[in-house]
């Protein structure tokens, strides 16, 4: 079913805003963070106005209501990703989810399936966002494990040609992005998961750029851990998800220690509850979780399938239009096969920062820079790109504005005599 984008746009207060020179805001930076529909904003307010209380703690009515709301949100997340509620851990962000995993794995004692040493390998890729790279670099340093990585091909996809060498008997952990936040390339997961199972490696998916944009079942993917951020999925800031398979969470040591995650405590030691409690020390971001639950409902009501198809259509259109801009080079796949709505490009003679500024003057918000994927940029011998990333509230007209904006920036910066 095609999306009714004008109705959707109307749900997002910020999209009614005027920006520079009274231009309407054309928001093409959802890869960095998404905007929020009024339903989510109101859910957060409503929690504070009516049900705010510390979950799992009080014996009073609003504590019960807060707990119901918070655990209800967990069930919504579980349904959204096709997992079990007890497998859903609320974190503050995907960054925390991935670091939490790296630290928890680092906390594992010898004999644990998570234990790493000099004979272990941790596999990432050149496409990774810093959040799914540096935690593993540091874990490798702490444990003596070796960090290895997939390289990229000319389409800025993973190069799978040496997959059988990369995923070998020493490979204990494969931490990989589901969709690149630079090139938009979608990872060929079946190939990786299948090979990972052969050698018994754990698969960890950075789903920041995929979970908000496509219908995903963690069960069908066959992966072991899964991380994404609420704020990129029309949810509040400060809430993220770590999902893991029950058998693994049972064996995984905790990450943060504190209240509500213990079964007993003495001055010298503690024993820990089961997931998800074990991984949620302290008073959590209750309003954030509740808002995320409503956000995922909002997406599901529209339909992830529909959202994905809409984005593919937009991407197709964008790729065609961008190809017609002289001097513009798209960084990433040139067609919509296994590719999301993240469009990075460079324009000859205009630095991305300057292009971004010129677009901003027309109310068009894009991102410029290395997109927290610095090793990838260096590999591509680029300092920066301009990135337009699209979502359910964008339409074809937004893309037209982008193209017009680029053309007028070219006129300004490349006018003869300069």
């Amino acid at each position, binding site marked *: 079913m095609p999306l009714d984008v004008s109705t959707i746009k109307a749900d997002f207060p910020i999209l009614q805003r005027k920006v520079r020179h009274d231009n309407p805001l054309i928001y093409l930076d959802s890869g960095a963070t998404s905007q929020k529909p009024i339903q989510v904003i109101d859910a957060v307010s409503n929690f504070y106005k009516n049900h705010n209380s510390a979950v799992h703690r009080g014996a009073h009515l609003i504590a019960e209501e807060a707990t119901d709301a918070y655990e209800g949100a967990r069930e919504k997340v579980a349904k959204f990703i096709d997992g079990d509620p007890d497998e859903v851990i609320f974190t503050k962000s995907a960054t925390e989810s991935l670091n939490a995993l790296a630290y928890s794995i680092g906390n594992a004692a010898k004999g644990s399936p998570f234990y790493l040493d000099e004979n272990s390998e941790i596999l990432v890729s050149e496409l990774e966002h810093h959040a799914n790279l540096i935690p593993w670099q540091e874990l490798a340093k702490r444990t003596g494990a070796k960090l290895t990585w997939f390289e990229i091909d000319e389409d800025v996809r993973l190069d799978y040609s040496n997959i059988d060498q990369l995923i070998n008997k020493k490979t204990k952990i494969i931490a990989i992005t589901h969709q690149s936040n630079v090139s938009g390339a979608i990872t060929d997961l079946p190939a990786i998961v299948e090979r990972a199972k052969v050698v018994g490696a754990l698969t960890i998916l950075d789903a920041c750029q995929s979970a908000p944009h496509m219908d995903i079942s963690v069960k069908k993917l066959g992966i072991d851990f899964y991380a994404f951020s609420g704020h990129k999925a029309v949810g509040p800031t400060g809430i993220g998800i770590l999902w893991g398979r029950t058998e693994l969470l049972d064996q995984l040591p905790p990450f943060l220690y504190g209240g509500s995650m213990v079964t007993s405590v003495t001055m010298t030691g503690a024993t820990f509850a089961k997931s998800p409690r074990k991984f949620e020390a302290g008073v959590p971001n209750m309003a954030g979780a509740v808002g995320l639950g409503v956000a995922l409902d909002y997406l599901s009501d529209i339909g992830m399938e529909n959202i994905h198809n809409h984005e593919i259509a937009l991407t197709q259109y964008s790729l065609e239009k961008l190809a017609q801009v002289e001097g513009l080079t798209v960084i990433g796949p040139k067609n919509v096969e296994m590719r999301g709505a993240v469009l990075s490009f460079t324009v000859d003679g205009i*630095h*991305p*920062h300057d292009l971004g500024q010129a677009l901003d003057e027309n109310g068009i918000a894009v991102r410029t820079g290395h997109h927290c994927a*610095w090793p990838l940029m260096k590999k591509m011998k680029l*300092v*920066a790109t301009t990135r337009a990333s699209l979502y359910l509230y964008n339409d074809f007209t937004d893309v037209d504005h982008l193209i017009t904006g680029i053309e007028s920036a070219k006129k*300004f*910066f490349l006018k003869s005599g*300069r």
Partner: protein
Amino acid sequence: MNLESLYQDLILDHYKNPLNKKLAENPGISVHHVNPSCGDEVTLHLTGDRSELKSVTWDGVGCSISQASTSVMSDLVQGKSPAQAESILNSFMEMMQSKGGSQGDLELLGDGVAFSGVSKFPARIKCALLGWMALKDAMVQLDLI
């Protein structure tokens, strides 16, 4: 504010035809500065003593603002005493922090006043300062200020 007043012709000219953008060999000091939020880079070579900055050359990649600003800076401080260079630098920084309030001191800054519009764009101030920060660092390391 519009694009023309941010990107004055002078800025675009320096961007297209930067001054002193060729690293001198055997400098007194070589420093390398990066803007980690966008990846822009500048390498600055400085030769000088307490009486004079004899040679200020540089190389780098980055946006028009960072490149033009470094170009203007290299031209401005070349041959100046470290103390003079420092007061130019301070004047430039003050203008940058003025949130659009200051037009800049034409006498001290010369072409540098073309960057006054940048101070209205918080995200771009770091671009304009990249080369200047490298200069400051180089002077400190050479023990000139």
